[in-house]
Structure formats: structure tokens, C-alpha cells
């Protein structure tokens, strides 16, 4: 499971509605609205679905853009990664 910290940049007039729509998405947890234009969100999804989940936010009316501040795939490191590390 990947975890990503996201900052969703919205039009000021749409901030509350955008936050509400994100709250209804199963893979997203919101951490409040900030500076009248940002919603802080944590996305939690398998790495191969993360982008698709983030795209759902992009599709919300009033969203200008999304910034990623953090991604971890710590528990998805697999055997192929081990092989690369060993060379």
C-alpha cells in the first residue's frame, strides 16, 4: 500500500465543496482546509492504483492542481528490488 501526502489547490469559492467531495472518497483522508485555498489530503492505495485515485480528485470541479509532498511505498519493496540492490 502506498501512502501519499497531497495538497489540493482549489479556487477559493470551491474550497469547502471540494473538501466535502474528497471526504467521500474511500482512499482519501482530509486534514483540513488552509489559507482559503488548500485541502490537505492523505491518499492510501496500492501503488499501482494511486495515480488513478489521485486523478479522481483532479476531476473534481474547482480543483486547480494537486501537489504531492510525500510518497512512501515502504511496504511494497519486493524481491525484484532486492535483486537490484544486490546487483
Amino acid at each position, binding site marked *: 500500500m*502506498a501512502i501519499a501526502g497531497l495538497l489540493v489547490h482549489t479556487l477559493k469559492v470551491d474550497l469547502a465543496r471540494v473538501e466535502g467531495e474528497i471526504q467521500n472518497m474511500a482512499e482519501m483522508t482530509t486534514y483540513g482546509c488552509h489559507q482559503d485555498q488548500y485541502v490537505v489530503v492523505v491518499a492510501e492505495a496500492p501503488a*499501482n492504483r494511486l*495515480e488513478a485515485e489521485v486523478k479522481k480528485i483532479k476531476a473534481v470541479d474547482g480543483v*486547480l492542481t494537486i501537489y504531492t509532498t*510525500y*510518497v512512501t511505498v515502504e511496504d511494497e519493496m519486493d524481491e525484484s*528490488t532486492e535483486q537490484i*540492490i544486490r546487483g
Partner: protein
Amino acid sequence: MKLSRRDFLKATAASSALMAVGSPMAFAADDKADKWVKGVCRFCGTGCGVMVGIHNGRAVQIKGDPNNHNAGFLCLKGALMVPIIYAKERVTDPMIRKNGKLTKVSWDEALNYTADKFKSVLKADGPGAVAYYGSGQALTEETYLASKIFKAGLKSNNVEGNPRLCMASAVGGYVTTYGKDEPMGSYDDIDAASCIFIIGSNTSECHPILFKRIAKRKQADPNVKIIVVDPRRTNTARIADLHVPFKPGTDLAILNAMAYHIIDEELDNSRFHGKYVNFMTNDKKKVDFEAYRKFLEDYTPEKAEKITGVKAATIRTMATWFAESPATMSLWCMGINQRIRGVWANNLISNLHLLTGHIGKPGATPFSLTGQPNACGGVRDTGGLSHLLPAGRLIKKKENRNEMEKLWGLPQDSLNPKPGLHTVALYNAIGEGKVKAVLMLCTNPAQSLPNVNKHRKALAREDTFLCLIEAFADAETMKFADVVLPPAFWCEREGVYGCSERRYALVDKAIEPPGQCRESVHILVDLAKRMDVDPKLVPYKSAEDVWNEWRKVSRPTPYNFYGMTRDRLRKASGIRWPCPTEDHPGTKIRYVRGKDPNVPADHPNKYFFYGKPDGKAVVWMRPYKGAAEEPDAAYPMVLTTGRVIDHWHTGTMTMKVPELKKSFPAAYVEVNTRDAKAKGINNGDIIKLTTRRGAMDLPARVSDVCLPGLVFVPFHYADKLINKLTLDAFDPGSKQPEYKICAVKIEKA
């Protein structure tokens, strides 16, 4: 509060986003990563600070550096570096092509084989037959070192790199207008600008973190005007007060028409340009303001409308906003630089600033954006191009060569006085069998060169020896390699990146490289010695040794960053040059007394363009000139290429991240709704694109993003090498190719 590991990771993720907006998050403050190591993002020229989280000796997390200019923000690409580091395609052993197949060998065998090849070519054909082709992604130390090895050690000035393809016209623009390269402003200007003029840049997709800053500025003050001049209605245009689409290739006429209106309406700042500006004709004759005003009569907004397709009233509005704003900042990128007259276009943007005095004040500056993380610091500044020596010195100037000979401990007049081959000329020379041995570092020209089929044939010649220092086995250029040397990648070694705002920042070593990978500095030193380069020229034990020499080399020049010791760079999240002493904080604004350490504190004038003999910048009289290959009856449309937000350059990194690959899995052609309707094209139909250089089938994306008559294709996809269709005509000044415009016809396949 007791947190599970999962809860902790979620809290850390939220914390990073909250820090980015300046809100603390108490319960995440207890950061339990083994170690966080400071670095710089590996992608675009924005140069965002990152922190690499290490767990059990492996990189597992990436977050934005809250202390760097990006204030903790990253775009998705930057945040997803981890899968790239551990990609299965990593090259982890030296290889030599044997019987047509790259075969694992020892370091000794690979290096000796390469050195022998170079020595044999040097002996038979001289230094003009060898070359280095580098990258705006290599570390500063790597490019400085490679350039020194070839120019000082092998006496070959055939030192080039992919920055020739992306920002050479910006260099030419700055040097001809101000006498010195690199922007005079910084990202801080975005926060103070009241008008932001964006031309030839899709900032939202190519520099997302700067777009964030622009959007934030706009939202903070609704009176801020944003103008976007672009033939495509990109995401950047979403926040624009005025989006101005125009006929591709006519930007020179638009910029001259804006200058005309500014003067005609007396919106110019005559006190500024009367004191700090020379007016010059295209053939470098100094003229007076009246002659310049007369020159502009060919570019009234009405005349420009006929050339550009932009309404005269719109040109007037743009020019008025630009001039009347308290502080105007211009931003541009490849749409201006990748043009047959890219230098002129750069000059004309600066003209607007010099006419209005929107320069050298917070929020008022021309500012070119860069495509790669170290094109500025690594290649432009260290002199990693065929006509340059370090820190703005020129090969053709004897006094510059003599100065470098002294600094490098060489006999006087021993450097080769003849500039080397620029990129297109270099690949032409390879095709003609004149350049026979090439060392490449961290670049993928078999995909990124324009008119690439022609140059792939050159790389495929039997008598061309090609040694790549390359991290990824699936890079297109690997198909042509005779030897491959595996480098440590990104945070597997330490070194400096220098971004668009003259900010140098250290990428610290966070993890060990895999397999037999070695730091490129060590590879270069080892190879140089085996090529019989004088060991005194390459006495380095580490990248830090190279950096310390480079600091000294910069010291006698206006680039002077002698004060940026390694220790300072380890602590700070970047410092902007000039930075002459260890207690100097770095420079936000150049050419201004009290702001730039190169302007004496007692200088009689506030502004001093010290790159020019009389301290004055130049307003150039550059006439309109169209594209090298205009549409015609046979090829009636224009093809342009560029990036999408989730991929970068030739895709050797971003295509390895499943999330990014899924986002834009395949190449496509963007077609205007009107053109699609006229040709019966629907979304998803396969379209055949044909130019004078080749043809390609691509699925259509029908929308109103492109102007009618224009199609756009991203250049990230190895299976659809759109550069097979692009043109390698180049700007006669900067030698930068015109990727942005060529004639094309489209039809349903």
C-alpha cells in the same frame, strides 16, 4: 499518542503537506525514519529541494524540503523517485558489445578498451575526431571534470551536451542583451510581481511547483494580471486573465508590436532606458531611440495582427498591462528557445523590460525557465559546451584561454583556440565519419535529437565508437553503444545541482549504489588517466575536490561563488550566486547596486550591466522572421512537441513508475476539434502524421487545446519517436534546433 507504523506513515504524509502550507502537526513531529538526507529533485530545472527517507540503508520515502524554495512541495514525479532508483532496468555492470551483444566485463576491461579506442583515434585523426556529449542532469562536478579532461587533457573542444537543445537560445539572449548569461532575478520575484507574462511555457505541466507559486500569487491578490501567450490552451492558461493564442512562429512580431504600443502610448520609462540602454541594429550598429521607434513602425498592432492572427486590441491590452503594472515578470521556456530565431525572441522579451524599467526590482524581471535540473549550474556555468570555458569565458578569446591555462596549470597558449562542434554539427560530423569516438554521460540522444533517424544512422556507423555512462538499460541510445559504464544514480553519490534561479544546492549521498556502479567522477578520472591525460590535471579523490577547484575557477569572474563551501552547502538548502565570501548570503537580484556584490557599493549608478563595456544593456532591433519550415500546400499544418505533466524527457525514468506510466501510457496526437471535424477524425482514431522526414501513426485526442492548424505530440515515448518527424534546422546564433515548429500533414490512417 501511540501510533502504528501505518498510522505513523499517514501522519508523516499529512505532516509534509501541512508543513508546505506552514501549519504544524504535532503528533507527526516524532519522525522515526532512520535518516533523512537532503537533496534536489532529479527532474526539471525548478530545482525543488527533497528529503530522501532511508530505512535499513534503502531509500523508501521522498518528501519536499521545507527549507528550500519549494517549501516542502513536490510534483508527483519528484515524489515518486524511489521506484526509479530500484528499477529492474538499472545497469549494474560494465559491458562491452561482443558479437553484437552487450556483455558483462570487468571495470578494467571496459575502461582499458575505451581508453585504447580513444587513444587510437586521437593518434590517427587528432583531437577533432573525439567528442564528449553530456547532460543537464549530470552533476556540476561531473560536467566541469569531463569538459576539463577533453579541453585541457585531450585538446578537443568537441564538448557538448543536451542543454544545447533546450536553453542555448536563452544563453544567447542574456549574453547579447546584458553581456552575461543567467537570469538576474529569482523565484522570489513571482511573489512580488503584479503582472506575470508567460510566453512559450506550459508552466503548469513542465514546472508545476512554480505554477503553484504563480497560482498562489494570483489568489493572494486578484489584481495580479497573468498573461499566457501560447498557441495551445494549456492548463497554464486556466489561471490567465488573458490567454493569447497565435500563429506558431510569429512571436517576434507580437513582441515588437508590444514594444511599439508601449512607446506609442508613452508607457515606456525614458529615464531608465535613457540612462541604462543602448539601441542597436541587427548588425550591431548603435543607433538612437528615434531610429528604434522608426524601426517599430513595421510592427504596429494592426500590421502584427496580419502576421500573428492576434487582434490588434489584444496586443495593446497585453502591452498596456505589461507596462502599467507596478512590477512585471516574464517567464518563458522551450516555446521561445527552440526556435530558428530563439536568441532574437529572447532579446525581444528583454526589450520590453528595458523599455519599461521592469527590471532589477522585486517582481520585475525577465526570467527564463530551464528544462533540466542542472543545465544552468552544470553546463552553462561550468562551460560544458563547445564554445565555452568555465564561468562565462570563451574559447575564442585569447585572454580567457590564457586565464584558464594558468588556473589549470597548463603552458600558455596550449588550449585549442578553435571552438568545437555544436550539437547538430557534431552529429552531422559523426555521420560523415569525421568524429569517431564519443563519450556520453547521462543523456539519450537517440531519442531526443531532432530529425533523429538521420542521427541514429550516424550513431550506427561501424566506425563510430560510442561509450555510454548510462544508468538505464532501456535507453534508446544503448542500442548503439560499444561500451557501457554503470554510474551511481542521483542520491547514490554526492554533488551539486544548479537550478534556474542561480541556486546551487547539494544532492547528498543517501544510499550505496547497486552492483558495480561507480560515481561518475571516479569513472571520469580513471578513464582520463588510462587515456594518458596528465594525472596532474585530474588529481581528484572526490566530487568535493572538483567542487573546490571549480569555486576557485569561478572566483575571478562575475559568477563568483567562492563563498559556497561544501560545508555551507551541506547545511543550507541552496545558495544563489554570486556568493563571493563565506559570510555572503547569496544574491537575489543582479546588476543592482546594493543587491549584487559585483556592483561596487559606491558605483555612481543604481544599475550596472557589467557584462557590457559601457555598463549598458542593449535593446535590439530584431526583425520578424518566421519558422524554418512553414506550412505549405503539401504539408499544411504545424507539428509541435513537448511534455505532459507526469512524464519527463525521454521517459527513461518516469516510465518506470507504474503510477506515472498509467497516467499517460502511450503517445498521442492532440488535434483541434475543427480540424478533426473537417477530416472526419474522432477521438481515438489512428491518425497518420507525415512530415518531410517521415511518417507516424498515433491515436487522436480531439480537443480545443491546440489552435486550428496545429497538432501536438509528447516526445516521451520510445516506441513512438516523434523526433523522427521533427526538424534539425537551428538558430544561427545559439545553434539550438527548432523543435517547436515543422510542417506536417495529417490524415486518418
